């Protein structure tokens, strides 16, 4: 029952051979597959993390760009407003100037017309007065002397009238 002989050596050989067989046929391939899977999983996790980081970075870039472009847009609008205001002011000024000019001209023209009308009226009135006076006094006094006399009279009356109306 308790015999110990050469069979120890055979059993040891058996064990070593069994170990080599199992290592080669069972443990190595199975562990290889498991390690490969592990590596694959780790790889894909790190890949996912990488792409997540990239996406975040891209998002940040886009946001930056967006903010920048909106700022740019505001600036452009502001500039346009300023320009428009300058142009508006300029146009308004031009228009005012023009209007002032037109009004001044019109005034001058009106004054000239008035003057002319006045002069004409004076001349006619003088003629009428001379004719009337000639009829009244019936005398052929020196027309030139009378005309001068009435002219001075009318001028005096007009001046006093002008001064009164002014």
């Amino acid at each position: 029952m308790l015999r110990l002989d050469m069979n120890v050596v055979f059993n040891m050989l058996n064990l070593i051979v069994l170990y080599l067989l199992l290592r080669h046929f069972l443990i190595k391939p199975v562990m290889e597959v498991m390690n490969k899977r592990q590596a694959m999983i780790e790889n894909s996790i790190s890949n996912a993390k990488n792409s997540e980081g990239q996406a975040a970075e891209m998002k940040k870039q886009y946001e930056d760009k967006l903010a920048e472009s909106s700022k740019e847009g505001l600036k452009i609008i502001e500039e346009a407003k300023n320009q428009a205001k300058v142009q508006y002011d300029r146009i308004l000024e031009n228009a005012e100037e023009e209007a002032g000019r037109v009004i001044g001209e019109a005034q001058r023209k009106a004054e000239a017309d008035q003057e002319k009308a006045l002069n004409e009226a004076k001349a006619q009135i003088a003629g009428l007065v001379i004719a009337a006076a000639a009829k009244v006094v019936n005398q052929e006094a020196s027309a030139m002397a009378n005309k001068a006399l009435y002219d001075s009279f009318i001028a005096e009356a007009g001046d006093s009238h002008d001064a009164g109306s002014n």
Partner: protein
Amino acid sequence: MEELNCETVFTIPVFGGIGISESVVVTWVIMAALTLLSIIFVRNLKVENPGRKQQVLELAVGGLYGFFDDLIGEEGRRYIPYLVSVAIYIGVANLIGLLGLKPPTKDLNATAALAIISILLIEYASFHKKGLKGFIKGFAEPVAIIAPINILELFIKPLSLCMRLFGNVLGAFVVMELIKLIVPAIIPIPFSMYFDIFDGLIQAYVFVFLTALFIKESVE
């Protein structure tokens, strides 16, 4: 009491006849079966979408591997395949009585072989890790005065491993035979559950567990 003895199956007619015992022959059978099963099951392993068969296989091998990996740590990782092989071998050897073959572990020669290989591996692990000087110094640790005890351990460790396994399997076998002698039917079933299956697996576990612990101790 004939069952207790391990028969000599045949004799090689050299050096005045070398008797090959039953344990060696049964071990051959186990080796052949395990290798064949390994080849069959390991075919077509896939990294992605493993089949159910592969999942079970990975659970078993990966579980054993992880168990020893936790025990033995980074330093002793190279010895894990041996421990896994021995665990499978002792487990199968203890259970093979269910198939009507005599368990090889019931032969002192087989358990002695296991224990000798284990102690050789343990000492080799220490030698490989620490070099010759460290290996010899290791006997004088933690203090020089216990060096004799450390040297004695070289023989105690394998002896205890060997005798524990042998005694348990033999004891279980004897108890089972006695029960079967008294009540041949029904009653032996629960006892067989314990002595043939549970005890066999527990002894396989204890053997490789202790070996792993010793290896870890020696590589520290």
